[in-house]
């Protein structure tokens, strides 16, 4: 393959189509003429027509386009990458995170940290988990690398608060227990592909 295409870095003149806007007025007279022409033709009302039409729809047909943010929010795409969520196991309600530290390792902004310990049940307990959202660039690598689909991106895009740490601990990101039934899988990077079964060789079991 020729690399010429990549070597031409003068993107300013490439494949642009100029709009035909006609001639711009040059002398004072021409400018005056253009103003009068536009006023008399009532071009303004052509624009205002759209405004009044929408106003009518909103006031009388209950078909409002303005979102009353922050009281109302737009739905966002399921693969949108905003503040992280920590998922729970559906059966037990226990957090899925096993504390393997892969997200911590892969994080290019170096903003994830995990504290783990050996707990009373001889298991690895994640005693604390934080993401420094002051540094996070929402690249999605953590969700992609997670072997348990435990950390994923959610749709919470409002990241202003009094403290940076406000939504960055394990507790903040975990699915609340009462909402466990509504917990959904993240379809973005890291999720199991629909044909995953076809790509896996099965291990024999002696049971």
């Amino acid at each position, binding site marked *: 393959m020729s690399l010429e295409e990549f070597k031409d870095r003068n993107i300013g003149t490439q494949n642009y189509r100029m709009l035909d806007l006609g001639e711009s007025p040059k002398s004072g007279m021409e400018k005056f003429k253009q103003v009068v022409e536009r006023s008399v033709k009532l071009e303004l009302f052509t624009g205002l027509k759209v405004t009044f039409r929408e106003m009518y729809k909103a006031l009388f047909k209950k078909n409002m386009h303005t979102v009353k943010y922050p009281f109302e929010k737009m739905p966002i795409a399921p693969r949108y990458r905003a503040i992280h969520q920590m998922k729970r196991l559906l059966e037990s309600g226990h957090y899925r995170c096993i504390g393997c530290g892969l997200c*911590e390792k892969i994080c290019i902004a170096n903003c994830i940290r995990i*504290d783990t310990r050996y707990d009373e049940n001889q298991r690895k307990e994640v005693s604390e988990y934080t993401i420094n959202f002051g540094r996070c660039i929402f690249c999605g690598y953590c969700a992609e690398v997670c072997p348990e689909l435990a950390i994923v991106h959610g749709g919470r895009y409002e990241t202003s608060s009094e403290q940076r740490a406000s939504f960055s601990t394990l507790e903040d990101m975990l699915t609340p227990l009462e909402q466990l039934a509504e917990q959904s899988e993240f379809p973005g990077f890291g999720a199991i592909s629909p044909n995953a079964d076809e790509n896996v060789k099965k291990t024999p079991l002696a049971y």
Partner: protein
Amino acid sequence: MSRNEITITIDGVECRTYEGEYVLNAARANGIFIPAICYLTRCSPTLACRLCLVEADGKRAYACNTKAKDGMQIVTQSEEIMEERRAIMEVYDVNHPLQCGVCDQHGECELQNYTLELEVDSQRFAIADTKRETKNWSSVLHYDAGLCIVCERCVTVCKDMIGDSALKTGPRGGAAVDKSYKQSAPKDAYAMWNKLQKSIIVPSNGTEYTNCSDCGECTAVCPVGALTERDFVYKANPWELREVPATCTHCSSGCQIFYETRFDSIDNTEEKIFRVKNEWNYVSLCGAGRFAYDFENRDVKRDATALKAAVEAIKGADTIRFGSMVSNEEALMLQRLKEKFGMKLYNPEARAFQKFLDAYAHASGHSLYPNDFREIMRECDFVISVGSKLRNDNPNARYVFNNIQKINKGAGFYFHPVGDRLVPTFGRSVECFEHRPGDEEAALYLILDLFADRKKLPKGVLNYLDTFHEKRKKTVKEKVMKEVVEKLLDKETGEEKEVKKKVPQMVEKEIEYEHNLLVERLGGDAENFDEIFAKMMKKKESFALIAGEDLFFHPHYENIAKLIALIEKSCSMKVVMTPPKSNSLGVALICELDDECEGYTIGYNAPGDFRLSALGDGDLDMPAMNQQEGTFVTMNKQVVPTNAALEYGGYELNDIMNELGMGRELTIEWTQELPVEKGFQCVKFDEMPNYYLNDGTEKRGYRLATIKRRASRSNPKKLDDSIVISEGDIAYRCNPPRQFSDFTDKAHQIFEKFALRASPERAQELGERVEVLFDGASIVLDVEADDRMSGDIVEIPDFKSGEDVISLFGESRYSKVTIKRV
């Protein structure tokens, strides 16, 4: 053992190696990769994993136990071999928990690595799993049997290197491998699987807990996450840890270690040491090296008033007393202070060693002992230890002694007054002499008597040795075949028959033998010594003598030095010494030490009127050894560098020197100023390497040069009974294993207490707490039973410098004491 160089061909590459070297080691030394899990360099081949299968001259062989012969042709990869190896890895992967994310070995796991290396991407074998419990074997060892692949590296290293033999394989109770696999699985994989299904690692004493010295070497060699340090379990992942190459400074072995550091936790982002790692193929650590790493002086700020006070104190000091855990650079600074201000330098351990080395140099003609421990471990097959408590004093001396028994099929003499139950288990040919304290000279005379080339001995000594030989008679029992006539009843015919039979019978017989009075004096079995010794000497070629701390702290140290010089000259014996504390050798070479401590004393990690301390309890804080750079002299006479693993915010000795106008910009600038006339070299700190090559060659710093001088020719003195302690309560200055100084004591994973230690029987007699009365002083201590001790001598530790036990004992490690119950 002879080391003839030969050439073998591995995969078409000509490799130089030694005759009798294992093919695997030869390949590694020449940079050729042969996969192997169970093999440990310096230990005997286990043959558990069978991964190192190769073709040697066309035949299947295992590289780890095939000895190289000249002209040998080795093929490391063929279709058959690769199929075998892949199948073996598949077997290892059967039922191995798929919890890599949780495992502590995740990222540096040999099972992971070889599974990927041998491209195992599917599994064809299956077997019912066995429930295997996770156990804590001791205060530091954690064993997760579920992860264990039974490569037996832990068992091997514990037996062949450490000498505790605390682990063995036990029954697993697993299902039998399905017979149908015999056809489908490759031969070796099937055999290995059968063995694997039967065994698991258990403590060898039959209990749930290991009774060992808690060195943790088994955790280091474990290829998977089965054996880990209890404290490290699930705390951090290997890849998060920053590896700092350093030198362990607890004892004079000066082992190369890696401090592994990371931020402490989310709440505390300070750097902290999480564990210590070592190159376990070439270095074996002790419990102090591995677990006593958190002795740093934390949270220190620069305190200018304390610094001023220290400077004033030094100007007015009469003595600087310091511990041996100082770097060469610090020792040099102290020496410069002495030169400028004329104060005394006091370090009793290094002083004793210095005096001994002086006497030795005077007698032998060279400033340092000629050999090193690595050399004798590799080459010798008869090792003699005099004057060191092998189990407690220097771990590496013990490992060398043990390794020679196990790997070089060696024999050994162990001369020590304190009875030990472990040393005799090192090998069948270990002969222990529990002699009376102070009688070390007799042991050295015995060595001369047994090993010396009589032509090389001076006449006086020769005549003196002859006085110890007597002709005596002893009765021996002998087996004689005797003919006996027996009457037998034939059952069928009912007839009695007389049958002649030969029956062995023991007959007592009196024979004449040569009675060695030295053996008798040292508490040996003089009657049968000739036979025992002849057995031990079979096929032995190379001999070594380890001279321990008792010899330096001996009233007749000068005479002992003469005897050692004479042994070196007349016995073709390699001689090594174990410097008493961390850097005693370096201090002894660099500083002009004094015999007494007088007047206003500055204590540097030692008692004093003004204390500079890295323990955080002094008048001015100093950095601990894991917080500063510097060099050390190891017992192998190597000057090795160590790096700072942790931050330190306070002043160091060089800052005091700067205040006095004698400093350098950095402490490490003193490194190239170390005295060349004492054997040091003018090498910059940053140019010192600190690593091992694949063939085990040590690339660490540089070797001290030995300075030649004229040897004096005076014969050693005869034995003197007046210094031998033969009755009464005897105390021995000796630390428990894993305890060396205040710094090991500070570490949270070292549990050995500051207590009097005695054999279980003696401890029971003594009760719980005793007062030990010395001449004019006393110390009150708890009593602890040490089930590996025997005899009546009690051990009193000196690792707490504040207790100043070393002064209680004075110039000997033994003292007559009175012990009272409290």
